[in-house]
C-alpha cells in the first residue's frame, strides 16, 4: 500500500500536510478579516501587509537584536497590534460613517505604503529565517515523515482559531462584541465602551495576521511580496465562506488549503488557480457563500 490512484502515498500525504499549513494561514487571516469586518465594516486590505510585517518584525528581531523565535511569537503580534491600533485611532475611525469602499481604498493605500517601504529597504527577493532548533527534523509516522515545524504551524493556528471562536461565541466579552456588531448604538447605550472595543478588535485582528507572519517566516522566505500574494487568495476564501460565521471562516480556510494541496498532486498547473475556481463555482451555486446569509 504505497500508492493511491497511482500517486505515491508519501507525496500525497506530504502535499496534504503542506495544504493544511497553507490552510492554517488562510484560516487565521480570513478569521481576522471577518472579525474586523463585523465590528468596523471595513475590509482590511492591509491584512496581507500586516502578515508580511509580522514576518519581517520576526526577522528583524532575530537579525538586529537577537530576539529568538519564541519571544517573537509573543512580541511580534503585540507590536503589529499596536501598529493596528495607531492606524485605527488616526485614520480608520473617520471612515465608519462612510461607504464601505472607502475603508477598502484606505487600507489598500496603507498596504501599498507598508509593502513599498519594506521593498525599498530589503528588495523583492526573500530573506531566510531558520526553523528554531526545537522544531527541526521530522516525526516518523510509519507511512510518512511529518516535518515537526509544519505540524507545529497547524496546531498553533488551530488552537488560536478555536480560542478566538470560544471567546467570541462563549464568553461575556464575546457577547458584548457580538452585540456591538449587531447594533453598536444600542450596545453603547447599555454602557459598553464600543469605540474601545472597535479599537481593540482591529488591534486583535491585525495581531492575528502578525502572528501568522511569525509562523510563516520559517516556513516560507520572508519577502515584501508575501502578503499581497496571500491576501488575494484570502479574499477568495472570504467570498467562498462568507463573513457571517467565525467557525465558517476557519473551516473554509483549512479545507481550501487542503484542496489546493491535493490539486498540486493531481494537476499541478491548476494549483494556484483552484481556489478561484472554487469561488466561481460557489458564486454560481450559492452566491451568498457557504456560511453566509444574504443581507
Amino acid at each position: 500500500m504505497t500508492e493511491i490512484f497511482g500517486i505515491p502515498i508519501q507525496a500525497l500525504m506530504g502535499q496534504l500536510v503542506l495544504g493544511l499549513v497553507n490552510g492554517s494561514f488562510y484560516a487565521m487571516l480570513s478569521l481576522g478579516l471577518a472579525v474586523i469586518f463585523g465590528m468596523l465594516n471595513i475590509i482590511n486590505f492591509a491584512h496581507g501587509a500586516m502578515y508580511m510585517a509580522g514576518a519581517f518584525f520576526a526577522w528583524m528581531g532575530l537579525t538586529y537584536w537577537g530576539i529568538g523565535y519564541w519571544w517573537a511569537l509573543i512580541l511580534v503580534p503585540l507590536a503589529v497590534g499596536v501598529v493596528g491600533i495607531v492606524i485605527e485611532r488616526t485614520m480608520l475611525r473617520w471612515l465608519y460613517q462612510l461607504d464601505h469602499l472607502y475603508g477598502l481604498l484606505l487600507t489598500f493605500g496603507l498596504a501599498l505604503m507598508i509593502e513599498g517601504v519594506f521593498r525599498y529597504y530589503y528588495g523583492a527577493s526573500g530573506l531566510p529565517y531558520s526553523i528554531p532548533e526545537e522544531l527541526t527534523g521530522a516525526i516518523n509516522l510509519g507511512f510518512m515523515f511529518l516535518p515537526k515545524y509544519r505540524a507545529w504551524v497547524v496546531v498553533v493556528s488551530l488552537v488560536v482559531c478555536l480560542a478566538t471562536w470560544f471567546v467570541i461565541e462563549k464568553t461575556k466579552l464575546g457577547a458584548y462584541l457580538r452585540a456591538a456588531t449587531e447594533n453598536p448604538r444600542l450596545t453603547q447605550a447599555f454602557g459598553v465602551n464600543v469605540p474601545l472595543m472597535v479599537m481593540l478588535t482591529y488591534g486583535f485582528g491585525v495581531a492575528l495576521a502578525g502572528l501568522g507572519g511569525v509562523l510563516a517566516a520559517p516556513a516560507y522566505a520572508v519577502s515584501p511580496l508575501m502578503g499581497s500574494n496571500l491576501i488575494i487568495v484570502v479574499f477568495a476564501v472570504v467570498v467562498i465562506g462568507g463573513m457571517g460565521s467565525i467557525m465558517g471562516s476557519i473551516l473554509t480556510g483549512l479545507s481550501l488549503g487542503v484542496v489546493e494541496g491535493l490539486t498540486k498532486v493531481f494537476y499541478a498547473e491548476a494549483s494556484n488557480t483552484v481556489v478561484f475556481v472554487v469561488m466561481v463555482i460557489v458564486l454560481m451555486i450559492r452566491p451568498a457563500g457557504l456560511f453566509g446569509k444574504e443581507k
Partner: protein
Amino acid sequence: MKMPKIHFGYLTLFVALLFAPFIVYPVLMMKVMCFALFACAFNLLLGYTGLLSFGHAVFLGTGAYVTGHVLKEWGWPTELGLLAGTLSASVLGLVIGALAIRRQGIYFAMVTLALAQMVYFLFVQAPFTGGEDGLQGIPRGTLLGVVDLADDQSLYYFVLAICVGAFWLIHRTIHSPFGQILKAVRENEARVVSLGFDVAKYKLVAFVLSATLAGLAGATKVLVFKFATLTDAHWHTSGEVVLMTLLGGMGTAFGPVVGAGVIISLQSELADKVGSLVTVIMGGIFVVCVLAFRRGIVGEASALYQRITGR
C-alpha cells in the same frame, strides 16, 4: 445654462491636445491618454454605477495581449488588431461581470479582484503571452494601409482620435436614460429594483461596456509601446486606475482624465529619482485622498467654483 461652458472647456482642451505633441514628448502624452481612457472606462462603473471593480487591469491586459498577439504573430492589420483586443476584453468582461454582479458591495470588489488574479495566473502560464518576458517588438502597422503609424506624430493623432471617440461614447452613455438608471442604481439599488428595473442586466451592460473600453485602452497602449507585459494585467495596475479615478474625482466626467495625467506624470518624474518608493507615494496619495479629499481634484474644484459664484 452650464452646458455651453463645459463644451467650451472641452474645445479648449481638444485644441491644446492637437498642439501638444509639438511641446511635450508624444509617447508620454499617448501614455496619459491611454490611461485616461482606462480610468474613464473604470469611472463608468465606480463613479456612475457605484461598483468598485478591483480587477480592471485584467481587461487592459487582455486588450494588450490579444492585440499584440494578432499583430505580431498573425500579421493582422492594425484596425482589426485593435478590434480583436477590444472585443476579447468585452467577452471576458461579460464572463467576469456575470459572476461578480451576483454579490453586492464590498464582496463585488473582492470577487473582481480574485477573478482578475485568476486570469493573471492564466496569463503567466499561457504560451501566447510570452510569460515573464511578455510580447516584444509588436509592429504598429499602418492605418487603412495609408498612414504609417511607426511615426510618433501620426500615431499621436490616431490615439487622440480613439480617445476622443471613446470619451464621446462615455459622455453619451452617462447622459442617456440608460446612464440615468445607472446613477439611480448607485444612489439606491433597492428602489430601482422596486421600480421594476432589472438591475442585474443594467449592471452587466455597464460592466461589459467598461471592460470593452478598458480593453480598447490596452489595445491602444500596445500600439504606443510596441510591447505587452504582465504588468498591464497585475493588480497593481488595477489599484492605479482606482487611484487615478479617486484623485481626479469619482463620478465627474473629467476627473479620471486629470487623475491619469497627474499620476502618470508623477510616476515618470519620480521613477528614476526615488525608485521603488514610488509605490509608497502612491499609497500615501490614496490615504490622503480617502481621508481628506474624497471628491477628488475636479470634484473639489467645482465645489469651490460653486461656492465662489454663490450657487
